[in-house]
């Protein structure tokens, strides 16, 4: 079987996979990072969104072998050491941006990619961007509020760092 190696959440990892192994299977089953969820497995729901080389992708619609040599960030890689959450995670908590929480990892990963591309998205832009993320609990309202707050917090954090 072919071997793959990639950087996941800052750590160099490798493993042997079948060519048909999906990136999400590699993340969950080989690396035991189970924060990345499989909701639909038909590339509609977005619960499996991770970042590959800085861009959000659906890890159920990408082969693990295609991520060979890439840099991958999953929901587990967002928070720094200790108890400090990423500002977008904190914003979801503060704004009650989840109910059952199953879609949340994908929502957060997708939201961060949006803000990286568009630091101050409007409500319309947020709703448009969430086309690829399905939530069956919230009705999206608090998710949109969370992302608006998360974007502002990310901007504040960036300004503080500079």
């Amino acid at each position, binding site marked *: 079987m072919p071997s793959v190696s990639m950087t996941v959440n800052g750590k160099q990892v490798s493993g042997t996979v079948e*060519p*048909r192994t999906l990136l999400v299977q590699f993340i969950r089953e080989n690396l035991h990072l189970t924060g990345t969820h499989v909701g639909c*497995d038909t590339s509609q729901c977005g619960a499996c*969104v991770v970042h590959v080389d800085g861009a*959000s*992708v659906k890890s159920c*619609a*990408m082969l693990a072998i295609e991520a060979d040599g890439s840099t991958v960030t999953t929901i587990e890689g967002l928070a720094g050491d200790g108890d400090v959450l990423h500002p977008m995670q904190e914003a979801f908590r503060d704004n009650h941006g989840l109910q059952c929480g199953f879609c949340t990892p994908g929502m957060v990963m997708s939201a961060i990619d949006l803000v990286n591309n568009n630091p101050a998205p409007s409500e319309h832009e947020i709703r448009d961007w969430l086309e690829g993320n399905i939530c069956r609990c919230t009705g999206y309202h608090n998710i949109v509020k969370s992302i608006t707050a998360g974007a502002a917090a990310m901007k504040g954090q960036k300004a503080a760092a500079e």
Partner: protein
Amino acid sequence: MYEFSYHKPSSVADAAKAMGSADDPKILAGGQTLLPTMKQRLASPSDVVSLRGCRDLVGISSDGSTLTIGAMTTHAAVAASGDVQKAIPALAALAGNIGDAQVRNRGTIGGSLANNDPAADYPSAALALGATIVTTKRELSADNFFTGMFETALEEDEIITSIRFPVPQAAAYAKFDNPASRYALVGVFFAKTSDGPRVAVTGASQGGVFRAKDIEEQIAAGKTPDSSGIAENSLNADIHATAAYRKHLIGVMAKRAVAAAG
């Protein structure tokens, strides 16, 4: 998904070679159609030849009269490209509205054209703009490239390398999308070219993308476009829309595209 052998050649010439020597191969570009299809076991290639190692297939260049886009360029890259936004803003807008953000980060223009999904967006742009599809073997005009639903003139071991778009005087794409999938129920791409108006329709026909020549003639004659000349029995009917509704939408989308092009 059934098992397959995986190949990642570093040049498109090696990719063509790998295609030629495999039993039942498929090219993997962005994989946003192929992988879901394989997961559903609707496709079971013996070999998958990834183009991810062929870096020369990625890129966008413009010389003012022609916009050239490498086959492995993603929808997100086309949407964000200053060259595309300047030369053919309608094409950048079309790319930025395909599927969802994650699909746009992986899906490629070459993959979309080679797949020729009857409801995909890019085929209508290629056809209306009179694009040239450059492959490992030849150059094909868009008029000769699309041959039917999910069918193109590509041979088994022929790979798209780039697409050349002549820059039109004006262009616009109007799409009535399925709210769930964002595929076009009907999409109309209108281009005002030096050879006259060109209009291509996606999402509507059983034969895939097509040129609506009678609408082109109406526009050339300065009339308001309408879809009365389109045969209803050639159009798709499914749970999303009847053939009559699609026919109606072709007229509405054509009007909107012409108005948007200014």
